[in-house]
């Protein structure tokens, strides 16, 4: 089983309702933190964790997921569909 952590997002007006981090893929490059240190931090295993799922707008959140060099951050809408960049 994949080692994943899910974080529910309840930000008003956002089309993203869930952030998923695949801890097997995460290498702690921390590019997500460079995009938003209000959303993510690293834990002592050098894996990204979400500290505030509602901290930033959708565009920045998508950018944070796209910055990941291992594609370890997945974003989902309310219907459970994965959100991909344009």
């Amino acid at each position, binding site marked *: 089983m994949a080692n994943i952590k899910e974080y529910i997002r309840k930000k008003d007006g956002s089309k993203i309702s869930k952030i998923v981090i695949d801890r*097997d*893929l995460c*290498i*702690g*490059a*921390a*590019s997500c*933190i*460079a995009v938003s*240190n209000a959303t*993510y*931090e*690293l*834990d*002592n*295993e*050098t894996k990204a964790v979400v500290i505030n799922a509602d901290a930033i707008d959708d565009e920045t959140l998508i950018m944070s997921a796209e*910055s990941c*060099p*291992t*594609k370890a951050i997945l974003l989902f809408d309310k219907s459970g569909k994965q959100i991909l960049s*344009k």
Partner: protein
Amino acid sequence: MIESFKYLIIGGGVAGVTAGETIRQKDKESTIAIISDEVHALYSRVMLSKPNFFLGKIPFEQIWIKGDEWYKNNKITFINKQTAISLDKDNKTITLASGKKISYEKLLVATGVHPRPWKVVGGDKKGIYSLRTIEDGKGIMEAIKTAKRAVTIGGGFIGFEMTDLLKLAGLETTIVLRESYFWEPTLDEASGKMIEQVLLKAGIKIIKNTEVIEIIGKENVEGIILKDGTKIPCEMIVVGIGVIPCEMNWLKEAGVNTKCGILANEFLETNIPDIWTAGDIAEYKDLILEENIQLGNWVNAHEQGRIAGLNMLGKKTSFKFVSFYTTQGLGINIAFIGDSRPLPDRIVIKRGSPEINSYTRILIVGKELIGATLINRTGELTTIAKLIENNVDISEKHKELGDINFDLKKLL
């Protein structure tokens, strides 16, 4: 007719591609081209040295960050397998190795760095690897299938990650360091010893204070000879002894200022109008340290690509960023934040200790934090980076910084 692009980006790595992406988000119509010396669309260079990737725990396909269709969908012309060899700044034209000329309105040079060549007798034998491209990675992947014994050279990132990988792949592995401990001098000896302990525990041999003087074998590597004459048999060698910038003479000849990298101000602009630089090759004015520095890591290159893209669009934005990088393996987690160089004017506060296997060093100049090194305390990375970024005055807080039970977040 000379082909012409409004935005011309030389370098197909994360800095160049992020710049192109940033430009396209704000300017839907203008022409953009990215020139790469490699054949591939953007891939994750940092994954190349990760054991999970090598050993198939991360699927190979995961390496592709952008597919060929991304360039097409975003109307970005991708010119692969080409390098620039000259620049005519007055006519805003570059010439490629193929002889083709391309003109630009705005130029970004993000060509990166490559591994420092290893000059040693017998260095032309088969079985010696360094790591920059996906082809290098594939070469190592292939070699570990048959090799029984490996030697890694250099006590830094590549040395650490490749040693971990080779050991996991079942090879008898020896690491050779020129220094007296691992990651000298960026880490202190106590931190370096913590890394050495996990390497030793995993059954890896560490040989310090020495250098390889000869590689033996016929066509293929059969072993190395150290300075004191010791012979170590091996079938493969992985070298990680630092990096040097990609070719810069063509820029120098055109009047672009360079030193260890391409010199740039805080907007990542070079001394020549309409030419920017980003990523590992940029030697830029760091606003936090107030000096010119050059950093080689994914996060930095990504962020600089974004900032360079904005500046090329005319949205003047300075690059102000506390950089960090991490690595982990063999049960140890290592991180570097900001400026962790051990220069004489630094005050170093120790937090935790090697004895409890949890050890942070905080580097201070004057009233402020400027950097840190973390062993098994990566959880503090974000907080320390914020303390540096926000220039928090910690002159009265040295005691708290050294107290492992004090939550650093309270200082924010």
